[in-house]
């Protein structure tokens, strides 16, 4: 193998760091989500219960953060798994595009759902 050196900074540092930052934030959001949404005395899961919770801006904000950061962390994480492989450019760009599009789509769906109340 003649080694191909790709020099020039490629911004790996930032996405690597953001992955860690979002991870830590998600850790707390997750705890919040679990306790507030699922496991407390009045965490009903009926339509009405959910609806009434969603009126609370704090809850809403928390869910919004969860959706956005969760999707970012997930897409970025999956991309880093994909990037480990020595794929040819077109394949990796396709996967990248699919990941980004899916993230955007599901992000929008999630946000729309949240905003519809």
């Amino acid at each position, binding site marked *: 193998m003649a080694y191909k050196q790709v020099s020039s900074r490629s911004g790996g540092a930032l996405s690597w760091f953001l992955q860690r930052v979002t991870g*830590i934030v998600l*850790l707390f959001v*997750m705890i919040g989500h679990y306790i507030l949404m699922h496991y407390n005395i009045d965490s009903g899961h009926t339509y009405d219960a959910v609806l009434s919770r969603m009126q609370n801006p704090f809850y809403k904000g928390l869910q919004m953060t969860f959706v956005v950061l969760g999707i970012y962390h*997930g*897409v970025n994480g*999956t991309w880093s798994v994909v990037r480990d492989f020595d794929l040819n450019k077109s394949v990796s760009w396709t996967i990248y595009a699919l990941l980004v599009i899916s993230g955007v789509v*599901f992000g929008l769906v999630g946000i729309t*759902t949240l905003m519809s109340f």
Partner: protein
Amino acid sequence: MSWIKTLLTYEKAPGAWSWGLHRITGLGLMFYLYLHIFALTALQEGPEAFNAEMELFKSPVFMLLEWALFGLVLFHSFNGFRIVLIDLAQGAKYHKKMLYWLTGISIALFAGMGYVIFSGVFH
């Protein structure tokens, strides 16, 4: 694809296990997150649709799945925390110890969650 053979035959130390599981749980959670978001779109279709869906989740099978999901969340969060300590603090020097401790705590929490889910205290 010879890497698969290498991966399978090479001795896996705790670090390698945690890496593998972190990836698997991560991808699993990613998938679940999309599913979760998709499921919640039922909220827009009105109370009947949503409540019907919620009933589904109360079945024992889904309770098991919920418990398993919590397992993924636990491992991925705690191991993620460990990775952050390795990368940004001096965690590399204590990585195995951390893994053993976090695994211990996770198992305890996982058991606790099992009780919570199946006893139905919060339902």
